[in-house]
């Protein structure tokens, strides 16, 4: 029982980060049909920029704010300089652009920051909580709480605010949104900015647990994309569920079956899920126009 709780908490913590990356994917995908493989780099930037801003002497909260602001600017730049000029290109061409962007950002980070592995102190200096024989780090709880807060805020923003509704309208039908007077270009730019912010917060939350370096982005993008698809691409609730599920499967698989094959277990279950639910957990089957 105690080991089960231990695996559960570890899996949920990592799953929360996958969920944040997956939400970033979904936001951008819904607004612009772009699958943004640079999403993982936002997480890397959030962690690395915080580390280096703190090293430069900024107090930690300011360093975090600077990192989030920098990542938001990066997200906007990605849209303005790379995605918008390629408007109308095919989906795979846009994927190659975002992969190019992720290689570019990784290269930039390896020069601008460095190639070492970095850590941040835990933000809450409390002792590990013992629960049913499992010891849970307060930072893990912080990750979960932070994720819940972001997801909650995002939903309020999308459902309650006018700007949020414009994002949803753009996601539903870009031309129709344009016709009712929504500035879709700005809305898409906003979705890149928000995705950048969400990724950066994920990065600075997870760094005290999982460490960071210039190359942590690519595997996270992979897991986040998988989580987003598992949940039914385009579905924010699905993205959160997909992320948590992926984290749990990995952790439980590593704990009970084989740590070498932990990713394999997750992916076999993923394949099985897709074969039986071809549109993901929450996705609806679409219809085709011929």
């Amino acid at each position, binding site marked *: 029982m105690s080991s089960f709780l231990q695996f559960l908490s570890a899996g949920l913590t990592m799953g929360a980060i996958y969920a944040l990356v997956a939400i970033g994917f979904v936001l951008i995908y819904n607004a612009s049909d772009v699958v943004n493989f640079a999403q993982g780099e936002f997480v890397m930037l959030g962690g690395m920029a915080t580390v280096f801003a703190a090293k430069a002497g900024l107090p930690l909260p300011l360093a975090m704010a600077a990192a989030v602001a920098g990542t938001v600017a990066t997200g906007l730049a990605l849209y303005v300089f790379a995605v918008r000029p390629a408007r*109308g*290109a095919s989906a795979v061409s846009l994927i190659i652009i975002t*992969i*190019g962007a992720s290689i570019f950002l*990784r290269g930039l980070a390896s020069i601008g920051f460095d190639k070492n592995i970095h850590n941040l102190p835990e933000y809450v200096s409390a002792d590990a909580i013992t629960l049913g024989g499992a010891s849970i780090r307060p930072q893990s709880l912080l990750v979960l709480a932070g994720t819940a807060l972001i997801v909650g805020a995002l939903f309020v923003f999308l459902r309650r605010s006018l700007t949020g509704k414009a994002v949803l309208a753009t996601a539903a039908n870009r031309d129709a949104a344009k016709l009712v007077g929504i500035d879709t270009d700005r809305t898409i730019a906003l979705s890149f900015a928000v995705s950048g912010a969400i990724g950066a917060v994920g990065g600075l939350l997870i760094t005290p647990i999982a460490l960071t370096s210039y190359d942590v982005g690519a595997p996270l993008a992979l897991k986040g994309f*998988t989580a987003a*698809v598992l949940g039914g691409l385009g579905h924010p609730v699905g993205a959160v569920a997909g992320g948590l599920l992926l984290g749990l499967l990995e952790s439980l698989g590593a704990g009970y079956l084989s740590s070498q094959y932990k990713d394999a277990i997750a992916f076999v279950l993923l*394949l099985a899920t897709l074969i039986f639910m*071809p*549109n993901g957990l929450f996705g609806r089957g679409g219809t085709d126009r011929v």
Partner: protein
Amino acid sequence: MIARLEVRYRIVVAIALVVVVLPFVLDNPFHLRVATLVWIYGLAALGLNLLMGVAGQVSLGHAGFLAIGAYAAAVGPTHFGLPTWLAVIAGVALAAAVAFAVGRPILRLRGHYFAVATLGFGLLVSMVLTNETGYTGGPDGMAVPRLVVFGTSIRKTAQWYWIAGTVLVAGVWGVTNLIGSPSGRALRAIHDSEVAASVLGVDVARYKLVAFVLSAAMAAAAGAMLALFDGHVTPVAAGFLRSVEFVTMAVLGGLGSVLGSLVGAAILVVLPQALTVFADYEHVILGLLMMLFMIFLRHGIVPSIAQRFGWREL
């Protein structure tokens, strides 16, 4: 896409000519080695382009098939005493069989769902290769026994250049034939619209499976050549980044374009070699170039240039 038969075959002849002439132009063994790698990767990119550009399915796990071919050439002779040529054939057959078995369920998935399923497949292959240390040597990889033909060991770059070049030209010729055949037309119809194609009586599932199996076999053949040429294989061969490289080759060169596959392969093989002079800035420049190419030549290099000059699509 390609209207006149002659144009299509002119490209095959042109590629064959380049393959034949190149060694006389390249004086330096390193350049010959790079050219050999271009032909080998070109074969894999061509297979993937058949799947992506013609049948319209994006695979993010193609390096898995490449690795099956590569490790067959290594494991067969080392652990089972197979002659290398038989191991290579077995590897290609195994990749085709795996593609057939995996393809049946996952080809029902569409778009990004198919991409994630193939991504999972690629990760599984690389994990097996990393963890089954007894057979594969684990993360460090293993040595590949040299190919021996009539008692002579094939290890010189020039020898491999001609082998890779010949296999590539054969592959180009085969794919060109296929694209022009009724099966090729069926595949292109699927690319344009699956529903419309099936309404017209195209057996969508069957043709997609054929394209998937063919592309897997071509990747495995490329993998086997790569392993025998290098003399060493590691699980990196099956990695996600390698798969992404193949997709980039096909898209950068031009989806659905035979010549484009080779141009894409040439760029992705030559560019990193050329960019090593920039040392730390290598990745920055590679990423930047990928973005610029796709922004300004969004249909891929070959089709975009052909369009600009009003040439028939290549």
